[in-house]
């Protein structure tokens, strides 16, 4: 397998808060990789460092053999990395259609391609089609999560970064979201997934990392991590 995305010894700071202390993560082509960790462990920060929202002070982020450490977010996204951020962050005053159009900012090839993709999204999330002209801010939490996902998929990314896509969702929808992640991956896309619901995440992940206070403490296949004692105790809530 080819390495698609690689973080080496990344250190990221918020002011004087040292949030990532030498994190190294590797994601191969076609994998689902998950990051597991307690609150404040640095999962979100890792994703933000990849997509260029925060800058690492030291360390390197490579994508497809190219150094993207100091690239601006819009250049990184043009490379084919899509980030579904924590809290969904839909554009509240843009309609569903416009939200999707914004997602296709970097798509070349004109209206035709964009409307084809949009139709694909509507096939995947029929609910969105019903709401096509509704303002993003008035959607319910679950619909917003679908929109966030679809918006990211519009740019046909080679890597999808997902930050807690199930947070605040009704149980019935949580299942749906994981189903979709699986489908996306089966279609050949690579996924880096952050989830509090470690059980479900590890179930679908090929590999996983465990983060603790900004450091990677464990790395293994998803199945192996599920059996790991530390993981079971600390993150799966078992005693």
């Amino acid at each position, binding site marked *: 397998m080819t390495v698609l995305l690689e973080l080496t010894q990344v250190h990221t700071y918020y002011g004087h808060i040292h949030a990532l202390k030498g994190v190294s993560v590797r994601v191969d082509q076609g994998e689902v990789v998950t990051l597991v960790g307690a609150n404040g462990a640095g999962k979100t920060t890792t994703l933000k460092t990849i997509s260029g929202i925060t800058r690492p002070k030291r360390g390197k982020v490579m994508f497809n053999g190219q150094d993207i450490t100091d690239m601006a*977010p*819009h250049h990184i996204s043009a490379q084919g990395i899509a980030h579904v951020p924590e809290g969904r*962050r839909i554009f509240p*005053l*843009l309609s569903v259609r*416009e939200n999707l*159009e914004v997602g296709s900012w970097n798509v070349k090839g004109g209206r035709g391609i964009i409307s084809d993709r949009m139709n694909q999204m509507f096939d995947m999330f029929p609910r969105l089609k019903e709401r096509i002209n509704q303002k993003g*801010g008035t959607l319910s939490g679950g619909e917003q999560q679908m929109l966030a996902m679809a918006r990211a998929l519009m740019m046909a990314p080679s890597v999808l970064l997902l930050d807690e896509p199930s947070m605040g969702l009704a149980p019935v929808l949580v299942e749906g979201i994981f189903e979709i992640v699986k489908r996306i991956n089966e279609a050949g896309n690579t996924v880096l997934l952050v989830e509090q619901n470690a059980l479900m995440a590890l179930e679908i992940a090929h590999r996983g990392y465990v983060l603790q206070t900004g450091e990677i403490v464990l790395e293994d296949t998803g199945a192996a991590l599920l059996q790991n004692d530390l993981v079971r105790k600390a993150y799966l809530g078992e005693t």
Partner: protein
Amino acid sequence: MSSESLSPRQGGLLDPLIQSEAWQRFSHTGFYRFIVFPIGQIIVFIVAATVFLTALAYLVALLIPEPRPNIVLSDQISRQLPGMVISGISIGFVYAMVALGYTLVYGVLKFINFAHSEIFMFGSVIGFAFMNFLSSAGVLADWNPVVLVIATILISGIASGLLAVLIERVAYKPLRNAPRLVPLITAIGISFILQDVVRALASITINDFNLTYPTRNIAFFQNPIPVVIGTNEVRVRMTSIIIVIAAVIMLLALNYFVNGTKAGRGIRAISMDQATSGLMGIPVNLMISLTFFIGGAFGGAAGALFGLNVGNVTPYIGFIPGLKAFTAAVLGGIGNITGALLGGLLIGMIEAFLNGLLPYFPAIGIRYTDIITFGILIAVLIFRPSGLLGERVDEKV
């Protein structure tokens, strides 16, 4: 930033028409969305404001028929009505164009760009400089007036837009993470700097900073057009007509840009969430510069039109129109493009009516025009805390 929804609300008399299939199809064409609808909107605003203010004036005339001996208020109203409306519209469009600059920048960066009134002033000075250059080269009179106006608007618009971008890069961009009041202070600093720099340049080059547009010798601009309405004749100044035409064209273009193009969509996305916009691939800084450019260009073009209309500008003329335009932007709902247009027209019209009719009430007089205008603003805000067209962002908790 937001723009009014482009489809009419439901539940009105026009429902049968609106629901008809042909209309549905028509209302989604670009021609409707970017030409028919906005023009309709402008006309509706003007007519509504005129009707409302006129009705109010006659109501007052009914209550106080003879505010001063030998003055029958209703007669005066009908005599002055066309003049008041025309002057209200022409200055209203100037306010609207300046207000757009405030609104665009506010929409995207959520701060009041106080230096915008100096951008307006800069535009008026560039307009002067251009015409003065032609005049001293002796070719001013040879230019076709229409071409001359277009060239002046373009040049001062572009120059002012570039200046606005420069200011953004130097004085606002480094402060994008600072508390919102901080760029307000740099904006004030920039105002002082711009006033004095323009003054220094004017003083050095022509040793004077009262800049008089050389157009007063050109018949096209100078000779008023007599319009006979009923029994009385009003003289409409050519420059008023130019302002209205130019402003409408530019507003249509802006509406198209913001609501109909990809870049416009990008700017609107940035106004809601910069970081996420970056994630979507939108070049945030470029879009912010573009916003400043457009806002600045509108301000500058308005400045040139204003200069052309009043004939004489100085480095200090920005303040009052700037203040009124800011008021207009807030009245309409700051951050809302249609709101800026409505606010500008309303402020212009209210002012024209007050200035035209208050003189008949010697105890009040036009010295209270500003107080009444602000009073209206405050009243509107008390009942609509986000301005006339502002989205009521009842924050969801």
